[in-house]
């Protein structure tokens, strides 16, 4: 994460504040971050979590959807147009929300 952080500091990655590595609880809970005495502009108030690999990211979002009833909307970026690629087991709501998200992301 260090090069990412450094590039952000140099304004080579613009319009965001990057910090890491952060444990998940410190990234999303101010209480946890304060408890551990972590001073960071990001800790406890994260907008975007960048995960180290797909097994980590996939496990996290599915666990929050299933165990914490989280809502999710997702798209694939990097193609000429947004791609909606929901899982067969995603709810109707998740599929609809993903269409909305891709409409919003479409140029």
């Amino acid at each position, binding site marked *: 994460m260090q090069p990412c952080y450094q590039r952000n500091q140099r304004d080579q990655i613009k319009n965001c504040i990057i910090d890491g590595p952060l*444990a998940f609880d410190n990234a999303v809970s101010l209480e946890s971050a304060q408890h551990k005495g972590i001073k960071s502009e990001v800790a406890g108030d994260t907008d975007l979590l960048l995960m180290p*690999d797909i*097994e*980590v990211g996939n*496990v996290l979002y599915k666990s929050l959807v*299933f*165990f*914490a009833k989280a809502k999710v909307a997702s798209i694939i970026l990097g193609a000429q147009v947004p791609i909606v690629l929901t*899982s067969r*087991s995603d709810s109707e709501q998740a599929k609809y929300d993903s269409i909305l998200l891709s409409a919003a992301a479409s140029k």
Partner: protein
Amino acid sequence: MIRSLDQMVEKVHSLNRKQRIAVSWAQDANTISAIHKAVSYGFAEGILIGNVSEIRNICKKTGIDPDLFSLFHADNDVAASEEAVRLTVNGFADIVMKGLVGTDKFLRAVMDKKKGLMLPNAVLSYVCALEVPSYHKLLFITDPAVIPVPTLEQKVIMAEYAIEMAGRFGIKKPKIALISASEKPGKHFQSSADYEVMCRKAKNGEISECIMDGPLDIFLACDKKSVEIKGFDTPVNGDADILLFPTLESSNPFYKGLMLFAHGELAGLIRGTIKPVIVMSRSESEKSKFYCIALACLMA
């Protein structure tokens, strides 16, 4: 079969045994109140090692009678850890617990080759029982704390530790989901190759009795509806007792996410030692700290 952490506490209570817990560098209010609760429930005795006058002061402030415990003086955190381990090795205590000492210093005393508590050639790993209101039973997970990237051999041992723990909860043939991002094995994932070997070992009876399948994603492991929608045939069938994760980076956010957003509570324990070793994070809830002590008493 024990289905909740409170049922686990009842079970420990019903065993009618008192486990002697040696606490290293014990002058910490949270630790003392958690031990006190276990002593009050009648299944533990506290041996507090550290700065005795500070321990007495904390007891006074929190309204706890210090004479409920045995108090031993130690000059510093390293000496206290060595003393806690020594008492346990020599049969004067049944469980060791980390107090105010840092985890690395504490584990150094536990892992000392000559004077420590390690089983010969054992793998040190962490298993934890999670209670989440949105799941119909306890969920055991491994390893969210100790082994960063387990090898195949370590994964097999992690499974064995979890099976053993589930057994103490009355789960005879636990369903183990080997977790990845998808149910499709991928050649980019080390986990896929390891899981294939593990499932074969389980089938051949080279792993203790269990129902093992993987790779599975979280949905297929824990949600019957997803299994039906996908029409995927797995003996775990959305009813997993144990989740085995490919890396610490994947299991650690999983349990922390459930603690923060799904009202989870946990009881966790280090495995691979001669006697139970309790290591708790400072940030764990009061309730979870008590559950960790009760779990150690159940496994002792």
